[in-house]
């Protein structure tokens, strides 16, 4: 039960990766002492060919995961191998360079590869962290459920304030109308809340609904007679609304953090493929 891609087949690909890394290091250390480590030695070519084939295979995951009719293993197994063998590439390719770096297309390919792998490692962490955090945050409900609750509470608040004084009506409905959820990439990743509220004709920031709650509490202290009971009900409902918005905002932020790395990982893989081809072609031209 509960076999994730990390412990797929008892971590088979972890051990494969370890063996690959170990063998590469041993071969590197044992190579003929008078040879300068370089991509051009027999070991250099071996490691380079292995690395290039690995990269092609790693990129092929994009095809495999959409090839739904394929009987060849499970996507979980592929992802497991992708993660472990992809990480091992860091060692294999570094040994292939022989630690010779420069300002050229060869090093560009290497750097792109490192960025892709590091973004992938972040992805592993994100996939193991955020789904659980989001599920706990939402207490096993879906985001759609929570939006429905928000809709209900908004309707409830609008009905409740309709019997109250005009200033309360104005502030609460403007706070509801000017509540912002989501936004651009940065707003989602950083959890920026640009909600506003209009009080006495002026528009104020209303981040996390703090401003409107403060105003309502202040207004409650001035309330008299039957207004007190009705207004305190509104304050309570508003507190619940504030909590729901926090959950929604956090969930959107977590989701953005969970997915954002793919926007680096995938395009840079394509860039890496281009740089890799250039690297290989140029090496053979200038041989």
């Amino acid at each position, binding site marked *: *039960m*509960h*076999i*994730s*891609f990390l412990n*797929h087949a008892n971590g088979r690909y972890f051990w494969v990766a370890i063996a690959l890394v170990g063998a590469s290091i041993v071969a590197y250390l044992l190579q003929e002492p008078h040879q300068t480590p370089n991509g051009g030695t027999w070991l250099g070519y071996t490691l380079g060919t292995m690395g290039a084939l690995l990269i092609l295979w790693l990129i092929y995951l*994009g*095809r495999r*995961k*959409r*090839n*739904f*009719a*394929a*009987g*060849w293993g*499970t*996507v*979980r197994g*592929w*992802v497991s191998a992708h993660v472990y063998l992809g990480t091992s590439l860091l060692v294999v390719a570094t040994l292939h360079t022989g630690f010779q770096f420069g300002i050229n297309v060869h090093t560009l390919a290497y750097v792109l590869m490192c960025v892709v792998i590091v973004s992938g490692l972040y992805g592993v962490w994100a*996939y*193991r962290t*955020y*789904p*659980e955090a989001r*599920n706990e945050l939402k207490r*096993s*409900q*879906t985001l*759609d459920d929570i939006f429905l609750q928000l809709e209900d509470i908004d309707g409830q608040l609008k009905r409740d304030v309709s019997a109250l004084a005009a200033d309360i009506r104005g502030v609460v409905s403007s706070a509801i109308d000017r509540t912002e959820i989501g936004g651009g990439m940065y707003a989602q990743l950083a959890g920026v809340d640009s909600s506003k509220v209009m009080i006495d004709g002026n528009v104020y920031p209303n981040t996390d609904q703090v401003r409107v709650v403060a105003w309502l509490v202040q207004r409650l202290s001035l309330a008299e007679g039957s207004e007190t009971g009705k207004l305190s009900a509104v304050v309570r409902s508003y507190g619940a609304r504030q909590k729901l918005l926090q959950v929604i905002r956090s969930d959107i932020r977590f*989701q953005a953090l*969970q997915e954002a790395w793919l926007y680096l990982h995938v395009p840079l893989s394509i860039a890496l493929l281009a740089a890799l081809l250039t690297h290989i072609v140029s090496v053979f031209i200038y041989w």
Partner: protein
Amino acid sequence: MFEIAVIGAGPGGLSAAARCAELDVEHVLLESSPKIANTIQKYQKGKHVMAEPGILPLRSPIEFDAGKREAILGNWETGIKTVGVNIQYGAEVKAISGSQGNFVISLMNGEEVLARHIILGIGLQGNPRQMGVPGEQSEVVQYTLDDPGEYKDESIAIIGAGDAAIENAIALAANNKVYIVNRKDEFARAKEGNLNLIMAAIDAGTIECYYDSSPAGVEALDGGDFPANLLLKTATGDAVVPLHRIIARLGAIPPRKLVESFGIEFPSEDQNAIPALTSQYESNVTGMYVIGALGGYPLIKQAMNQGYEVVEYILGHDVKPADNDLLAAKLNGLPYELEVDGVLALMQERIPVFADVNALQFRELMLDSNVSMPAKGDVIFKQHDYTNTFFTILEGTVEIEVNPTLRITANAGSFFGEMSLMSGRRRSASVYAGPRCIVIETPRRSMIKLISSVAAVKRVLDETFIVRTIQQKFAPDTPIEELQPIAARAKMHQFQPKEVIFKEGDEADTLHFIRNGSVTVSIEIDGRDVVMSYVPANTPIGEMALLGNTTRSATVKAAVKTETISLDKESFSLLLERSAGLKERLQAMVKDRHEQNVALQSNSESSDLMSFLMGQGLGEATDVLLIDENICVGCDLCESACAATHDGTSRLNRKAGPTFAHIHVPTSCRHCEDPSCMKDCPPDAIQRGGLGGEVFIGDNCIGCGNCERNCPYGVIQMAYKTEAPSNYWSWMLFGLGQKPGRGKAAVVGESSFKQAVKCDMCKDQSGGPSCVRACPTGAAMRLSPEDFVDLVNVVR
């Protein structure tokens, strides 16, 4: 005096009357509604009607072929005009008296019709229940609604609170002012989906509801904006509602009562029972014949063939039934020099369990069955196979291997395979063919139909089931004869879901063996029921306390509808005496259970999760898709994979369905042990098969939607077949076509129609279920209830 009066102008009745007309027999066709084929008239516009079973030839003076509802009805109307059928519309039958040669049919409108013979083809829909108030015959009152789109800007009252009433009210509310009149203060009978819809509509004010109200009359109005007033008795006094239209959806009066009042007998109280008929469709009332759905033949073509045949029989002509050639082909190769009827008679004579079945039913059974002659030593089925057909032995013997040390020989005339038939579980033994054996294999559905209509078959099967169960589970080395007295004292019990079988602290006096269904075992901790474990069918329960001679240590409740066989204390002691080693084996089982209980008891979260899973009806599942929300990243590759491998429609909805802790139950087929979807499938298109036991829908689905309605878990959809998915590389590189497994797929062809689709556990895919194989993180898993204990016990 007519020679033949046909009652009911459905497919069977039309065919019968047309045959009479063709042969110039004096006849009348009585139809209660104003049109022919009332049931088919009620299908939605443009519905595709299929002509299953495809292999059966049509034999009727009027045409019938698969096609659109309108075309079929049109053909029939022309057909009866051409041959000159004498049809009376609006002729609802109230009563029948007299006997063959002199029947008197009294109609609701007071007329009487005299006939020598009667053919009943009134179907199963029954007549709509009337409002029973003055003015109910008024023109503004109707009992059906064909097309809600026909009505605009009207005031309409819907009478009734069932699903049909709610569906009509919701559909009409889009363009009309709708009132719904509910006799009670809630919509208790409605499905949950409909309940939510109607409550939302009432809250939003789009439908006005009169609760605790019943109609008192309909009053026609002259002039004015509204043609009638509906008078209502409400809890707060009388009300008058001016209206354009009243639609009464009060359900139907089942035809059985009416049919019984004609003198026709049903063999049992079972609601699925069909009247006993001769092979010529004659009922116990001489001269009164029954055809079509009422006689147990729900398909259009069968009914039409019977209509033709029954007229021939009445006239004394010797015709072979339309299925004769089919049966002849089936029985071809048997070592008998006999006609079809002769072979069938021989079978009934040789196989006692079929002896009391009437000839017509047996013929139907044989049409569904297969006869085979396996060579000696051939495997008929293997232990743990997921098949559930029923076998009878016509000749020779078979070897039943219960376990490596116990082989029983079954002789000609006996039967096997009844354990899986009854419990819906895997085969409990392997069966091998003996020398020169001939076996008849009958599908589960046909057997279930037979069991519900022939009491003798049920009794024989039950008795055998009990004694074989006792032998297999408790006393494998004891001969059947010695176990007979114990079996005779055993009792059968039925429990509804959540019904208590026994309670913690009760005195232990019986042992239960779960025949079908499943149970949960719970104990009370701090006043709360904590579920300890789940026990599937084919397992004994309650043996702990009997062995230890103590009180019950836990409460056992039915998880789903469950049947058990119970043995009292004395029988149990007798059994222990007669079967060596039984005590030790039971003790070992008890020890295992104790260990399991301790593991669960220490973790109340596990127990809550178990209760949640049972609450979702997973106790009757055999294989269910669960998603671990802690590692699901919401990529929906599971849905895409399902759609891509199944004609463009995903059979699972990942987001839908409840979640408890981190376990999510998406809306997807759980392949129930006793599937509700299979209960009422006219062409028998839903099958269960293979080693995985998957329940799947075949291509011969006629799109009736019964299974969609019968599934309590909402996992069956009606969908069009779609085009093959586009090419991955042209999508990836050039953005051409649809994303694999996504996007709206195109409907193929003009004549396409919706068929029922559901999870088939990817039986045609190598490598297993594509949802699980496509999951990149391992969040999707497929489990059977036996694995739940492991699932909930994983400490994370």
